[in-house]
């Protein structure tokens, strides 16, 4: 029964998502901007700064860790080493795609229904809270994930089109696959769960937007760690990280169910009246 309920929610959410020009634009535009911006940044760095970038302490530390993880990189000329370093770091930038989409799409998913009154009608059906929340989160996470994978494919095409195909073997490593197919889904679900939870607690879209800001911080922290070379994410580390975030997904679903107050949603107006009377 749960599978039927979740499928029902997914299909409805997708129809709403892709018939809303704003949401559809966000889903298409965000990956385009992230990939475009990253390629531009890599191209500018490679074209104008080149090898000299590797002399900075931050890049030297990162390069040492990259060489330790992928020893073959040491044999490459300096500018290609830089390219591998930048492209490898870019994989983590892809994590921004599901989180940014979650920030805009998921944060309105429940608060909008609260305001329109459809949520009260939905809560009168036999749907379970966890089915509703998971369905809502997956409805955003799945398209965001597909767009991230498409972006990764586009990146590979661009690498090849720009004549950087020789270094792609050092970028498309087991770590790259683990990041895309394990870490990204885990991050996507976590981001959307956080968004949906925030949305379920918010009384209006503005409140939901405020909590949405929190979604992006874990990913920014990961990117920061990777870029500054504090830690180089080896396949083992990525696997471990994906596992931890996978557990966090489960915990976040449980927390979301606990934080979801069916009664408060039904009684929104009464609670308002009560506050009004107190004033």
């Amino acid at each position, binding site marked *: *029964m749960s599978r*039927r*309920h979740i499928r*029902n929610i997914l299909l*409805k959410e997708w*129809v*709403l998502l892709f*018939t*809303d020009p704003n949401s559809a634009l966000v889903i298409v535009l965000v990956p385009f901007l992230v990939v475009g911006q990253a390629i531009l940044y890599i191209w500018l760095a490679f074209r104008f700064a080149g090898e000299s970038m590797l002399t900075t302490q931050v890049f030297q530390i990162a390069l040492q860790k990259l060489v330790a993880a992928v020893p073959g990189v040491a044999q490459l000329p300096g500018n290609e080493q830089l390219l591998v370093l930048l492209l490898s770091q870019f994989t983590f930038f892809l994590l921004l795609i599901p989180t940014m989409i979650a920030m805009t799409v998921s944060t309105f998913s429940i608060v909008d*229904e609260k305001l*329109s*009154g*459809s*949520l*009260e*009608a*939905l*809560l*009168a*059906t*036999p*749907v*379970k809270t966890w089915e509703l929340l998971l369905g809502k989160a997956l409805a955003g996470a799945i398209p965001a994930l597909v767009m991230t994978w498409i972006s990764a494919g586009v990146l590979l095409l661009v690498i090849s089109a720009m004549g950087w195909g020789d270094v792609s073997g050092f970028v498309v490593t087991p770590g790259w696959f683990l990041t895309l197919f394990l870490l990204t889904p885990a991050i996507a679900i976590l981001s959307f769960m956080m968004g949906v939870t925030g949305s379920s607690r918010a009384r209006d879209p503005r409140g939901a937007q405020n909590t949405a800001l929190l979604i992006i911080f874990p990913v920014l922290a990961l990117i920061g760690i990777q870029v500054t070379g504090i830690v180089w994410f080896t396949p083992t580390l990525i696997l471990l990280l994906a596992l931890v975030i996978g557990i966090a997904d489960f915990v976040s679903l449980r927390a979301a169910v606990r934080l979801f107050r*069916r*009664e408060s949603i*039904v*009684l929104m107006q*009464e*609670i308002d009246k*009560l506050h009004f*009377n107190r004033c």
Partner: protein
Amino acid sequence: MAIIETFDLSRNFGKTIAVEDLTLTVEAGEILGFLGPNGAGKTTTIRMLAGMIAPTKGYAIVADHRTDRDVEQLHEVIGILTETPGFYSRLSAKRNLEYFAGFYSSIQSPSEQVEKYLKLVRLWERCNDRVGTFSKGMKHRLALVRALLHEPKVLFLDEPTAGLDPEAATEVREMIRRLGKEGHDLLRRRFFRRQIIVQLETSETKVTDVAKGLPFVQEVREEGNQLVLELTDSERNRPELVKAIVEAGGRVITVSEKQYPLEEVYLRLIREEEGNES
């Protein structure tokens, strides 16, 4: 057989008492309406009975389910028309209803069920139109269909005609009446009270007593030479009533039926209560 039973059902919001020690029994097939001024606790009672909010004291059993415990099972067998008929305005009427139908295990084919009910309320021609383009009355009819799709054992209607223009209100009321005839248990706020008025040549206590003793007579009132009665199934039992009155020696001049809209009944009750208090 009782379909709804409440035992000291109470609900507070902070220090405000919304419902206090409500104990009632509603039999299967019975129609019960709640009347009262704003803030009397009618919506709160309906929400508690529908398992949408929990009581602060007491409990209720609806269709054999505790409303504060077996919420999912309860929702399988009840239907509720909420005050705001919330829909997804960008989805069609059909898609909206199919979505809600998809949550009930009793509905094997949501699209067939939706078609059946949309035809019943004469909205099938607009089934592919976005709900956002519907009038208020049409949305209310659609919300009523949503409450009925899974053919619930108990139906709760909370202000089904509130905020509607007279035409739309009549339309919704007609639909409720039509659906009611098809055998749904209706618990609703709006209803019509029918009274049978028997005009006699002279007033006689014996005739009144006989009428009071008839099993289908719910209420009898003497108003001069008139007997004002309320019957169960008035159409079927009216000939029986006249026969009993004549046999008791009553000389019947006319028998007529008067229908009091709810508003009139309500105002009369409120005035009576105010009169008693003063």
